[in-house]
């Protein structure tokens, strides 16, 4: 367990994971639940335990839609989406760890796709 990594995630997210009361509402409301290996409540708990690397290597960090449903509906104001974001940043900031390659983009496009989708994906996946 890497203590620095945990501290970095906590600082970067600004989230106090100790506020979580383990109700699971974040995971109850998450629209990407079935696509995720680790679910929002697990993110919070695993960060609390310091198990960040497992999360960094999981595809789950690219499945969060950042729709903030968990943030708004959490009864304890924990803001799980911010934890997911912080873990994802910790992953993509590592050298050579960009989740997307600009060369892949053309084949993903169609005529109607607003470039907003590309801009957003770049911001989230590439450092």
């Amino acid at each position, binding site marked *: 367990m890497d203590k620095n990594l945990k501290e970095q995630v906590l600082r970067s997210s600004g989230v106090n994971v100790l506020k979580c009361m383990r109700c699971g509402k974040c995971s109850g409301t*998450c629209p990407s639940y079935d696509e995720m290996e680790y679910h929002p409540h697990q993110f919070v708990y695993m960060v609390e335990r310091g198990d960040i690397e497992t999360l960094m290597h999981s595809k789950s960090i690219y499945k969060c839609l950042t729709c903030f449903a968990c943030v708004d509906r959490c009864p*304890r104001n924990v803001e799980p989406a911010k934890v997911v974001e912080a873990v994802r940043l910790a992953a993509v900031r590592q050298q050579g760890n960009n989740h997307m390659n600009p060369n892949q983009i053309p084949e993903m496009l169609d005529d109607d796709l607003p470039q907003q989708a590309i801009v957003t994906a770049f911001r989230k996946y590439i450092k």
Partner: protein
Amino acid sequence: MKRIGVFVCHCGTNIAATVDVKAVAEALGHEPGVVISQDYQYMCSESGQNLVKNAIKEHNLTGVVVCSCSPRMHENTFRKAAASAGLNPYLVEIANIREQCSWIHKDIASATEKAIILGKAAVAKVHLNSPLTAGESPVVKRALVIGGGIAGIQTALDIAEAGFDVDIVEKNPTIGGKMAQIDKTFPTLDCAACILTPKMVEASQNEHITIHSFSEVADVKGFVGNFTVKIKKKARFVDETKCTGCGLCTEKCPMKKVPNEFNMGLDNRTAIYIPFAQAVPKVATIDPNYCMMLQKGKCGICSSVCSVGAIDYKQEDKIIEQQYGAIIVATGFNPIKLDKYDEFAYNQCPDVVTSLELERLMNAAGPNGGTLLRPSDKTHPHKIVFVQCVGSRCDDSKGKPYCSKICCMYTAKHAMLIREKYPDTDVYVFYIDVRTPGKNFDEFYRRAVEQYNVHYIKGMVGKVTPRSDGKIDVQASDLLANEQLHIDADMVVLAAAIEPDKTARPLATMLTTQMDTNDFFTEAHPKLRPVESATAGIFLSGACQGPKDIPETVAQASAAAAKAIGLLVKNSITCNPCVAHSDELMCNGCSSCEKVCPYGAITYIDKEFRMPDRTTAIRRVASVNPAVCQGCGACTVACPSGAMDLNGFSNSQIMSEVDAICK
């Protein structure tokens, strides 16, 4: 020359762990006037008190300083000890070195230094203390109970039983409160109405009890033993003394589309109504917002069918005034509004209901005559999802930070009743924790699971989507299975958090009692004085003090009654001697103090004074009525000549404390 004794308490390790008590005793021993300075393990224990008493006698002390816990805890203990040793109790001062020193600081050196300074301030103050004698004021032998739910009814019955007159003020047309709306009670499953309504009748028939229904407290003046209360009797447009409760008017009233509060708006009532069959008093009330006669001046049917002529469209609000010796607050609770939780679709779908609505849906006197049917299409639900902690245990701006305490148990009750009556209905309960501390409570919950096969799922519902086919998609997490579930439910029941009644806050202001940040009344001591407020003569009964189930409410109601009776049996009570007094030689009769006194305790008298030239002159000077003065000290600051001062907190005493701290 003053002879002061200083007594430093260890409070076990509570103080001694962070404050070097020996050093404190040593340092204070060198203060001027201090003749003895000791430390002891537990100063409040009998042997600790004896230490103080013996020192008073042995050293002929004229003042005592105890360095210990907060004066709010043991000031009285030490005052009594001093009195029993022949020292005037008001010559005792407390230096608070526990709550305001040892418990908040960690560094021994600086905490000790602070404790010494606090001790010095107390020594400096006690130098200027003077013996005080408390006066007495009479007690009015009548109690007021505010709120007519089960808490208020029980309190009133107990006080009446002791032979004192009691008035109940209830804002609704009938007493009974929330318990009257509840179908069955946990963990015995007996019928709420069957055990409540006899008590309501008993209250109405008791010669010592007067019920002011449809009334509100408008104003409270006075103090313990002698409150003057104005009660507003709201116009119900029906003469209570004439109405027989026959109900003919309610049958004939043409305005039949008024949401029925008693059934949580799940059905309608008429504009003139009796809330429910066993209402007490059983008299009709006209709802002026819907009555066509009162709105448009046309109709008058109720008046024409009433055989006793009880209808009075011209009735107006009436204020009555009454004296009371004690006031008991029993304003109760309400479920919170769920507008901010519409992820559960409460505002979108009539089949998403609160638990209190479910009580009415299942009650024989409810909208469906006791058959559980969906409000939307009156069909029988086959799958019901219960959601716990809706708005409870929240740290957001929407909900309440506390546990509402009753939801776990009533949900188990609902689940069990439904499974008992409709075995073909599946019941799911989403819980965070199941909290069942209470006699036979956990057994009850286990029966719901083991005997009735209620599906308890650890997790929370995150989104409810009503569908046009009548089903409700409930999306939730099952934390133990690590799965997100979708349940096609027919009904969803939300365990809404409970909150104090909205009338409690303005009432607390009138009563000058304290409330916590959630608007629950604050008890005088969380452990040892749970049914008294910090304001003398005001007692707390039921859920106005915190979430409670029925047995707890009744227990607290009786406890509050016992405390009130303890006050009412006295012919007079000892007054607080720390009251204002005016130095007549300095007073110039300007009336500044009179204007700021909230109690009207200050009057002016013309008094004859001998002047230096041997003549006499009549001057107007302030005079404080010590039985009325409560000792706030507002007048002392308003006084321009410095004539007004406060016993126990005199200008010179506070100045000497300031000096000691800033030395």
